[in-house]
């Protein structure tokens, strides 16, 4: 640490993280509550000789960042729920064609236009299954600006390492709240640069032939290797194929390259989780309220703990199972109708010990509300 200190919004912390990670291309379309990300980057990116574009809609935005990524640029777009819905088809293209990119969704209330200026965490499952077809996906979140910064850097690193789109699921409170951010010095956080093929011109380059470790070295558009990129199932040259063994092989590859690396992709924090009789599981801004409850009740000797998830997809089932194993009560604190709840129930030894403490009225769930719900769950009344 010891870098520049700022007092800023979460959306700006995301911008700082993206620039630290080496963002070279941003395309977006205005939408509350994410717009500050575009505004800030319209000023900052040209200063670094990067590209900022305001496109005609969110579909064009995600398509443009995929195109830019193919030339070797680290690319990002930012939006909120309605725009994220529009991006789903192209998100699937990035999954299928294995194009690194980062998509920020600063969540607001939905469905539809919903609550444009209020928060929710209602897009967790849209991030997982919004695009059609079987696929694996990476979605990350954070609960404070220092973590927003570092998880944004992680998002770019994962995108490059796994050749995949990575979704950052923030929310309105996180995006607009102001707090302290200390920007790390250059080199303090590791950055993953794109793995590029070392094959010289004239040697047959197979853009979709994984190495032994499953990774696929890329070649920039405009470079010496010309190849095809398609959203169809494709062979090692990137040419369309309906051959069942090729189709199955690609489906397995796309799934396994993420699901087999859950440990590497898992980011989390824990507070008094080891001896917790009641374990809260939360993420994003609701984790702030959950943490407040835990700290407050611990001072009074209550065995309360918190597991804060920063990686939501792929879901860290083993981590959750392990941390929840000794807890009598597991309470998922989230601002939706129970989207992470289902994954937690699937992960733990006894699903019946898992309950939901949620709030879906567009306002942040407070520590008092969480505590009241806990008292009911624990059978101690409010």
């Amino acid at each position, binding site marked *: 640490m010891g870098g520049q200190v700022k007092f800023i919004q979460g959306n700006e912390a995301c911008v700082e993280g993206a620039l630290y990670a080496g963002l070279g*291309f941003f395309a977006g379309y205005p939408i509350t509550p994410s717009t500050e990300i575009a505004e800030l980057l319209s*000023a900052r990116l040209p200063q670094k*000789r990067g*590209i900022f574009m305001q496109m*005609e809609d969110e579909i064009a935005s995600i398509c443009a960042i995929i195109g*830019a990524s193919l030339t070797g640029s680290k690319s990002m777009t930012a939006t909120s729920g309605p725009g994220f819905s529009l991006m789903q088809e192209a998100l699937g293209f990035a999954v299928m064609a294995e194009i690194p990119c980062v998509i920020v969704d600063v969540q607001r209330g939905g469905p539809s236009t919903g609550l444009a200026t209020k928060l929710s965490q209602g897009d967790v499952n849209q991030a997982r299954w919004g695009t059609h077809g079987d696929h694996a996906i990476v979605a990350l979140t954070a609960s404070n600006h220092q973590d927003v910064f570092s998880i944004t850097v992680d998002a770019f690193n994962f995108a490059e390492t796994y050749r995949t789109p990575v979704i950052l699921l923030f929310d309105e409170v996180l995006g607009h709240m102001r707090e302290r951010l200390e920007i790390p010095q250059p080199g303090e956080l590791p950055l993953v640069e794109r793995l590029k093929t070392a094959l010289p011109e004239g040697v047959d380059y197979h853009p979709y032939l994984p190495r032994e470790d499953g990774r696929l070295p890329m070649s920039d558009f405009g470079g010496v290797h*010309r190849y*095809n990129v398609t959203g169809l199932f494709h062979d090692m040259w990137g040419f369309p194929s309906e051959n069942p063994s090729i189709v199955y092989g690609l489906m397995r590859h796309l799934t396994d390259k993420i699901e087999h690396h859950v440990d590497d992709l898992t980011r989390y924090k824990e507070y008094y989780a080891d001896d917790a009789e009641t374990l809260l599981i939360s993420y994003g801004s609701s984790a702030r309220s959950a943490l407040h409850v835990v700290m407050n009740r611990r001072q009074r000797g209550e065995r309360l703990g918190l597991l804060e998830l920063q990686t939501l997809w792929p879901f860290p089932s083993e981590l959750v199972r392990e941390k929840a194993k000794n807890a009598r009560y597991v309470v998922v604190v989230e601002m939706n109708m129970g989207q992470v709840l289902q994954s937690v129930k699937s992960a733990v030894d006894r699903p019946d010990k898992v309950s939901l403490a949620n709030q879906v009225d567009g306002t942040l769930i407070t520590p008092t509300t969480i505590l009241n719900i806990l008292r009911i769950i624990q059978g101690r009344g409010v």
Partner: protein
Amino acid sequence: MGTREYIRERFFPHLWCPGCGHGIVLNGLLHAVENIGLKKNDIVMVSGIGCSARISGYLDFHTLHTIHGRALAFATGVKMSRPELTLLVPMGDGDALSIGGNHFIHACRRNIDITAIVMNNRVYGMTGGQYSPLSGYGTYATTAPYMNIDPDFDVVAVAKAAGATFVARSTTYHIKQLTDVLEAAILHKGFSVVEIMSQCPTYFGRKNKGGSASDMMEVFRTRTTPIASKEKAEDPSLIERGVFEDREAPEYCEEYHHIIERATKGR
């Protein structure tokens, strides 16, 4: 270098039907590229979805076969990142002007240096013959068994109105002109649109009693005319061919470069 050098022979035969006009467009395009003397490493071809979109897979350029209607948006990202590359975007009529209509008009408006090629066969061929926004009132299609009541619009007029700085039209019958206008479009600095009337004997022809591929091309010969010809004056229903717009205007990538200069001034 012959045009054969531009082809990925390993991926042939192509999937187009016998008599399809798209192969003629491909031929004209490759001759245009050869005439200009472009290097394969300097060309990025971006396409969407449909029969026309498959053109990209057959060519030994950097090729990006994307999703329906969005080719120009992907191409915009490539071009902005690497302005020195030549961007070719072949699209079908439905791809470019129905699902992709929004991206089309905004690419025209920005005047970004990309060549859009609209291979207009007035039908959705890949899905089996449904009407497109360019089929026109009174035509028949698998989704217009009683008659199509959707009016069409004029690609050239739309492109000009939206701000494209080079706009041309030709047909698969006029292979020399087709090659010439594509060459001029690629050389043009700014957003260029070339509409090429192409025949689909399999669907549009069959549904509209168009006859064989050569019958349909004969119609391109007899029902089109050079811009502002004597024939056009005598018969206004004739469709004009040629270059409708060719003007200079600030190109988007160059304008963005000025933004970088402003942003980095004094730094």
